């Protein structure tokens, strides 16, 4: 079971890191970006295509990150140009359209068959007491807290972070003060898009790397973000890692392993029911 929990850290770290991207997107540009992982897929598959064509990994990976960043920037520009005044719900609905569109583009560009994704983090890092920790699990588990710490520092210690926080609270007021909201929003999309690609580049070589599965990692990532209330970076990391560990443990329990993919939905449902309890109780009274 401990083996399962450690194995679950790889997935959990990815959920947490993608969840951080979602939390940052929601806090800063008011959208639940359901296309977050799909943007990453473009980067991963672009990288795999270039690697298959003979480009060294050290060049293919940055090219993939750049591709994901550019695609995300284009989507962010569309959102900032035409839907700047729309509410978070409308913008999130548009993000679902982006998800569907990106999957279609990905199938057209890369074909429908899963592609072998090269990665530098294969193999075991260490074995302690019979429990093996893979390199991918270690990188993923460390990546999410590092990202959270980096994002916190960016938002609290830099001029750009200060502007992003102002923009997230009062976009119109920020613009009236000369803060370039569109440029910052597009930059946020691009940065989180490249981050999503980086995360998927770590996990894709370790698991089934078909485009739909990778793109739908946004669901457990949403679960992680929901644990943090789409506000807390720490809560998101804890939610993602916890979810991964839970799935890893379930995978080792024979009677329950078939339900492991239902865990994110169960957690989402539980959080939503819990968060609505006061309204329901007030209405009942």
């Amino acid at each position, binding site marked *: 079971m401990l083996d399962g929990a450690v194995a679950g850290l790889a997935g959990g770290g990815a959920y947490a890191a993608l969840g951080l991207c979602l939390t940052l997107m929601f806090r800063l540009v008011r959208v639940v970006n359901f296309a977050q992982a799909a943007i990453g897929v473009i980067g991963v598959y672009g990288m795999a295509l270039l690697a298959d064509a003979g480009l060294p990994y050290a060049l293919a990976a940055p090219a993939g990150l750049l591709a994901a960043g550019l695609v995300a920037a284009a989507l962010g520009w569309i959102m900032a140009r035409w839907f700047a005044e729309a509410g978070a719900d409308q913008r999130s609905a548009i993000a679902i359209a982006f998800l569907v569109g990106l999957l279609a583009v990905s199938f057209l560009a890369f074909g429908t068959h899963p592609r072998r994704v090269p990665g530098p983090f294969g193999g075991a890092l260490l074995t302690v007491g019979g429990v093996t920790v893979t390199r991918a699990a270690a990188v993923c588990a460390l990546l999410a807290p590092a990202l959270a710490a980096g994002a916190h520092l960016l938002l609290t210690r830099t001029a750009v972070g*200060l502007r992003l926080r102002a923009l997230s609270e009062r976009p119109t007021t920020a*613009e009236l*003060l000369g803060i370039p909201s569109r440029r910052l929003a597009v930059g946020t999309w691009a940065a989180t898009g490249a981050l999503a690609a980086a995360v998927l580049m770590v996990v894709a070589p370790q698991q089934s790397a078909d485009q739909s599965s990778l793109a739908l990692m946004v669901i457990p990532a949403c679960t992680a973000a929901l644990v943090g209330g789409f506000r807390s970076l720490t809560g998101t990391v804890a939610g993602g890692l916890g979810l991964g560990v839970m799935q890893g443990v379930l995978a080792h329990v024979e009677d329950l392993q078939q339900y492991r993919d239902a865990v994110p939905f169960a957690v989402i449902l539980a959080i939503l029911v819990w968060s609505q309890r006061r309204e329901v109780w007030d209405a009942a009274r």
Partner: protein
Amino acid sequence: MTLELSGVAVARGAAPVVRDIDLTAPPGAVTVLLGPNGAGKTTLLEAVAGVLPFAAGNAVLDGADLAGLDRVARARRGLALVEQGRTVFSALTVAENVRVVNGSADALDRAVELFPELGRRLDVAAGLLSGGEQQMVVLARALATGPKVLLIDEMSLGLAPVIVRRLLPAVRALADGGVTVLLVEQFATLALEIADSAHVLAGGALTYSGPPGPLRASPGRLHAAYLGETPTEEP
């Protein structure tokens, strides 16, 4: 910088709100725009700042037409709108509210110089301040942008007259420093005390444009203008 509005009309959706507005706000002066609720004062300021489009007419800032410039570009030309409702960034501290538009220590010093009471509260989240202090932060933040033209919309809203009496001299001081001030205010009597010129907007059109003296001297004139009547000379 001189702000000149010529034949300006603004609509919200399909509904026309203001029409035929001709107004000049010279530098170093406080130009007061008065009028009853719903007259279109906020709409006019928002259009000048680029929040709403003009339906007709144009705004010229020191000879340059503002048409085609979005609100960010207008802000960078030196136009600052102090919106209604104490629009602080509530999660940011007082110091951060100023630093977000101007990171220099000088900007913060000037803010404290204008409103010494903020000096003790620089590290407090702006959302935790009193209404009057929040309005001081908003004014200080606008000042930190280095504005040439300051559009101030109902800064007294929800504040006690004693606080307004504290804020209006600060606005006067900004104008005396060379800033062009276009002030929309409901405390008409207090606003007229610091005004160099006055306009009254009623039903979407200007019903008085001229020196503030006659409005100060005769409340009847002011009331008539509020009711949409063009004031006549008193015998």
